[in-house]
């Protein structure tokens, strides 16, 4: 085991895959000479050269589409979005070409591409830099949507995403690039569609992913433990495909569910998960599913306002108490 930051774990994943497969290349704004806006690609230009690591002008729609064309002709592009907020500039290419090309071509073309970069709020970046996009992309047939909550998962899932033959939206967080964690030595990958129980428990299931596992779900579980409530924290890791059996197993054990996400509440990922729980575990539930989300507003700037919009530990604990009727 090595103790690595998520930043370094992601860097290792890309570096190992580029060394393994000459068809993999990295492209994005500032990924080369500047070593990445968040230094995730540090050293990669020096190691692989300008034919494998491309700096681009600020032209998200252009280089997203370029990546798709490269994927159609045999390459495996990693396209870094400085943040997924900017990927809205490329949404036509991602939705209309990357997601649909396999079906539109009757299966002739596959699009082995990874779009990766920070997603969600950081701190006081205001409305245009703070949106979470899991539910947005998960709604589109043809895309896979991947998140991680620690360094081990970050590396193992990114390697799998790069090897995957379908387009993958790989959602990171600038808030956790420095988060340290144990990473196995040597080669390993983590399959898409397989979640992980991050903390076992018996009284309530808290479903969370991405940075909210470490920021909200696990701290809330610690607080609840002090009150004698044992929460199980389930991280599906990949939103699409979704490890629903892992979720159902936990629900059948605890009979109570809180879903925590940074997306807007309306049509959030939790809407889909709770529908599946109602459909498959109706008789196992002792309370309606509770959801903790961002409020349905564009993110305001001031610290006090941003904090009020985002989910927090207190709201998670309140929701748990509600499903436990305490």
């Amino acid at each position: 085991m090595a103790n690595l930051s998520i930043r370094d774990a992601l860097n290792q994943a890309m570096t190992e895959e580029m060394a393994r497969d000459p068809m993999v290349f990295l492209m994005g704004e500032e990924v080369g000479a500047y070593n990445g806006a968040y230094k995730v690609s540090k050293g990669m230009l020096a190691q692989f050269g300008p034919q494998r690591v491309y700096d681009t002008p600020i032209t998200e729609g252009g280089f997203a589409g370029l990546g798709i064309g490269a994927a159609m002709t045999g390459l495996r592009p990693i396209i870094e979005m400085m943040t997924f907020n900017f990927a809205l500039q490329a949404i036509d290419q991602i939705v209309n070409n990357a997601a649909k090309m396999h079906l539109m071509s009757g299966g002739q073309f596959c699009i082995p591409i990874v779009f990766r970069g920070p997603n969600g709020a950081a701190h006081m970046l205001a409305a245009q830099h703070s949106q979470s996009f899991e539910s947005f992309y998960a709604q589109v047939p043809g895309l896979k949507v991947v998140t991680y909550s620690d360094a081990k998962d970050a590396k193992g899932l990114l390697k799998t995403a790069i090897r995957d033959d379908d387009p993958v939206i790989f959602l990171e967080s600038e808030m956790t690039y420095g988060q340290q964690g144990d990473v196995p030595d040597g080669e390993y990958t983590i399959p898409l569609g397989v979640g992980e129980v991050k903390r076992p428990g018996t009284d309530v299931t808290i479903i969370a992913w991405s940075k909210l596992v470490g920021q909200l779900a696990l701290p809330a579980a610690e607080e609840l433990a002090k009150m004698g409530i044992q929460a199980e924290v389930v991280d599906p890791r990949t939103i699409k495909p979704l490890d629903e059996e892992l979720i159902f197993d936990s629900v059948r054990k605890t009979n109570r569910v809180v879903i925590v996400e940074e997306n807007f509440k309306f049509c959030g990922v939790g809407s889909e998960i709770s529908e599946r729980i109602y459909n498959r575990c109706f008789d196992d539930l002792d309370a309606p599913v509770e959801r903790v989300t961002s409020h349905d507003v564009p993110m305001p700037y001031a610290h006090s306002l941003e904090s009020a919009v985002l989910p927090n530990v207190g709201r998670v604990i309140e929701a748990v108490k509600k499903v436990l009727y305490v």
Partner: protein
Amino acid sequence: MTSMQAQRRPDKEKLRWMYSQMVLIRTFEERVQQDYMSGKLVGAIHVYVGEEAVAVGVCGQLRKDDYVTSTHRGHGHCIAKGLDLRRMMAELYGKVDGQCRGKGGSMHLCDLERGMLGANGIVSAGLPLACGAALSANLRHTDQVAVAFLGDGASNAGAFHESLNLAAVLKLPVVFVLENNGYADATHIRYAARVTNLADRAAGYGIPGVTVDGMDVLAVHEAAGEAVARARSMRTPTLLECKTYRYYGHYVGDAGQYRSKEEVEAYRQKDCISQLEQRLLQEGILSEGTRREYREQATEAVEDAVRFAQNSPIPGPEVGLEDVYVRY
């Protein structure tokens, strides 16, 4: 003789190929138009009648392994790139033997084996794909090139400008072939742009821009030869504007009331096929007999394609749920 000069002087065989291809596209498109109007075909279909010289002149300079991205008006590009007529027609009919198993239709015709990366239903969306195919050729150290066909309407969209700049900055072997037929839907280019020659926009990206008469297949072929050679040997992109005209409306069913009968007739007088035909007859490269033969061959090939399409099964509902993911 240098290879570039050779490309400027198509030999007799190439000239006959151009003629036969233009006639084939025209015959195919007239039949599609007719079948749509009689209700045999449905969906959104945009025919290429009048613009044949562009697809044929350009694709006449390409190899099978070169890449092409196309537009919503893509049948001509597909035929000139060598796609199978039967499978194209079956796709328009929405049948299982279609090029895309009946799941793409007219606006998504494509063929991996022939480098046809797809017609595209989003105006300008194929240009970045062509840049990617060109980068792919660079990275794999092949001398393949990519051609992005686009219309005058696309030249006002963001993806056009982003793609020209990316191609220039990253030294990508792309030829952007701008088919300026004067109208984006019903809007004339004089309203939608303030430059007379859209190729002038190339200067803004530091790449060559060339305007040619798109009704003259030999002019298109010559200019495309130079642009393809620049891309292949120097990895330099070009914007090639071909001034052309579509004889029918934007889509099959558009009556085209935004333009006069006189305007349409004036262009029909300069018809690209008639121009080449007269020249080849004068030069003895075509005779009355071979001219008729080519036309009969085209008619028979299209009839055969229609029969194939009509006899192909319709896809069962399960087909629509396949090909969403390679593996899920």
